[in-house]
């Protein structure tokens, strides 16, 4: 009994203490965008709008994968703020929840949002978590659109789950096709993360397609979250096998280490990444000369000169002090896609979650959407997006179209 008493007392104490700290923090001007972004957003105007759709966003805001989750909720927040400030009849109220990129926590976050009265889910961010939630969403009949849950498992057999990003196989074949077309004689080495669904998924289809196209894969190197600090063995292996193209179906954070260590070894193949590589140029203090000549397939480029991208990047930088990556763009698009679907289906905010879901599911395949991450995006009834992947090459620290 005594222990429980202590526990409760300690809890009360901390709660009191932290609420005090928390309120002090918010009253001060934000010094670090990323840190206080959530707070300022919470007190933003989006909460009190009458007749707004209740939108939930889920992603890892803490832990290893916080980079991606924070980008997603920030991107969604910008879209929501924009929409609410516009004269659109569709308004949103956004609630952002942390899932630590964990299936169990993600389901908790989803249930928490359902308690809040969420009508549409934008999320979860990571494939594993998205798959876990998707099954629940399917039985509950809630409309779900994941910005970045790219595994086919997320949408498989679930008619009310849609993706904004490419599916993993799509990226794998896309990359192999591109290489086959433009650099057919390359000796390819692959380094991928084999405890990550995203990375492994792309690698599997890449290898399959590469074989079909007659590409030569000379070696493959793998790593896990636990061995992601040192790539010299994989690089030495690739170098000694004479690989001149290094395919990296991984996220930009480990990729930046690979670029650094390859550079230190004096190994300079062509690096070829997929959408996870996007963001490498925005990495704080990253020596962009290391990324010179890196090619990647990405649906989004923060350096694009169209108005939509420029506007988004400017707003994001102002609010969060960082250049947005593809995750933020996907989430931004996701909110606008939801808006477009709502308008197409003629939903109103007083409809029930399941009614909205059925209406949106019917409306999605009829949509054509132009956004940050692609032109003329359309959806199949399965939930898969069809958009053209864009290959870019990094030159002088910016994305340019390859010649």
């Amino acid at each position: 009994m005594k222990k429980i008493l202590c526990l409760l007392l300690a809890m009360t104490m901390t709660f009191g203490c932290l609420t005090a700290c928390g309120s002090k923090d918010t009253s001060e001007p934000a010094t670090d965008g990323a840190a206080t972004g959530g707070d300022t957003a919470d007190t933003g105007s989006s909460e009190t709008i009458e007749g707004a759709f209740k939108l939930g966003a889920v992603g890892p805001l803490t832990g290893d994968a916080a980079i991606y989750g924070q980008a997603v909720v920030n991107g969604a927040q910008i879209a929501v703020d924009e929409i609410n400030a516009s004269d659109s009849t569709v308004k949103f109220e956004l609630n952002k929840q942390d899932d630590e990129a964990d299936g169990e926590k993600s389901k908790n976050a989803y249930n928490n949002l359902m308690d809040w009265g969420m009508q549409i889910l934008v999320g979860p961010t990571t494939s594993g978590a998205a798959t876990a939630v998707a099954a629940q969403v399917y039985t509950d009949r809630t409309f779900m659109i994941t910005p970045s849950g790219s595994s086919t498992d997320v949408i498989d057999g679930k008619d009310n789950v849609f993706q904004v990003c490419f599916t993993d196989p799509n990226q794998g074949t896309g990359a192999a096709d591109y290489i086959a077309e433009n650099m057919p004689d390359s000796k390819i080495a692959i380094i991928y993360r084999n405890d990550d669904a995203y990375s492994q998924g792309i690698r599997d289809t890449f290898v399959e397609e590469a074989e079909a196209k007659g590409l030569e894969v000379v070696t493959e190197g793998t790593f896990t979250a636990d061995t992601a600090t040192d790539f010299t063995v994989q690089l030495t292996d690739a170098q000694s096998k004479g690989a001149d193209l290094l395919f990296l179906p991984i996220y930009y954070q480990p990729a930046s280490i690979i670029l650094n260590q390859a550079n230190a070894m004096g190994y300079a193949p062509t690096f070829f990444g997929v959408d996870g590589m996007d963001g490498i140029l925005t990495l704080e203090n990253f020596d962009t000369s290391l990324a010179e000549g890196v090619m990647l397939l990405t649906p989004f480029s923060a350096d694009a000169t169209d108005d939509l991208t420029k506007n988004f990047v400017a707003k994001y930088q102002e609010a969060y002090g960082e250049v947005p990556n593809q995750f933020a763009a996907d989430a931004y698009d996701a909110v606008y896609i939801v808006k477009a679907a709502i308008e197409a289906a003629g939903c109103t905010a007083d409809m029930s979650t399941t009614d909205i879901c059925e209406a949106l599911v019917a409306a999605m395949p009829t949509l054509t959407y132009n956004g940050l991450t692609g032109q003329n995006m359309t959806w199949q009834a399965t939930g898969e997006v069809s958009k053209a992947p864009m290959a870019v090459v990094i030159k002088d620290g910016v994305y340019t179209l390859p010649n």
Partner: protein
Amino acid sequence: MKINLRNKRTRTDFLTYAGVIIAFVVMTILQKEGAISRSLSGQLVPICAYVTMAISLNLTVGILGELSLGHAGFMSVGAFSGIIAAMSLQSAIPSDGVRLAVAMVLGAFFAAIAGFLVGTPVLRLRGDYLAIVTLAFGEIIKELVNCLLVGYDENGLHMMFNLNGQKTVADLGLTENGIEIIKGAQGATSTTTISTFTAGFILVMVTLIVVLNLIRSRSGRAIMALRDNRIAAESVGINITKYKLMAFVTSAALAGASGALYGLNMASLQATKFNFNTSILVLVFVVLGGLGNIWGSIIAATLLTVLPEMLRSFAEFRMLVYAIVLILVMLATNNPTFKLFFERIRTRFFKKPAKEVRGK
């Protein structure tokens, strides 16, 4: 067989059972009435799984007195073997409940085998060295499951070990009706979720019966004797290895059953879920609940599973608050000054000085 409630231990056991049953009945009624939030009702099965984990780890850490930092490894073995069993028996056993039971038994069985394989050599080590080896074991299990490809079709179970990363599920050669159960790093992503709160409750009760009855039997006494004084235990003829192994394997088996329950509650599950952090999480339940204190484990596991959810209003400060709560609770329960402080509050408000047999 009359229950002697005057015996303090029997009374505690009885109250533990009663508490769990009452909690189950109350939650079930509330759930039927729709009086509890989705957030809480969604956590009921994980809570049952964690409670089982905490009780079973308490058997190793609290009762046997050996620090284990790899308990999640056994949960992993149980979870994935349970998933394989449940998925491949879908047509053979149409009833979800029976299939879940079979999956949990198999999960327990395979985890017990893992426990035996690990325990036999490892239990010869002591203290922190044993702890690091259990940690190592947990990591090894994680990596092995990451390389596992399993599918099922009418020709039976297909299993493959992806040692060099070159193989995919396609290499399993499944027929068209085949189901991909575990896809290496992608994990189990097409699991049909069949776990229920009732099943979780039954598992917790079975765990309680196994652990409490074990503790109150000659085997349990032998295990506690090892913890209190290994040399004296040997001198009165207690076979150290046998009883260490008994506790360790039982603990692993229960963790396996808990893993099967947990795994069959998740549509998507990756081996990385059962990493060092999960082992530590369960260890925190055990230490906070009190070493050797079974009902303490139950309450700590429940509270600490719900706590992060209750902290959602703190947004990104959530895990920071969790960390601070954890430290403060450890200080509050273990520091003499704090203890005295709480004792005083207690005597002031409850006017009843603490009655405890104090050792020297």
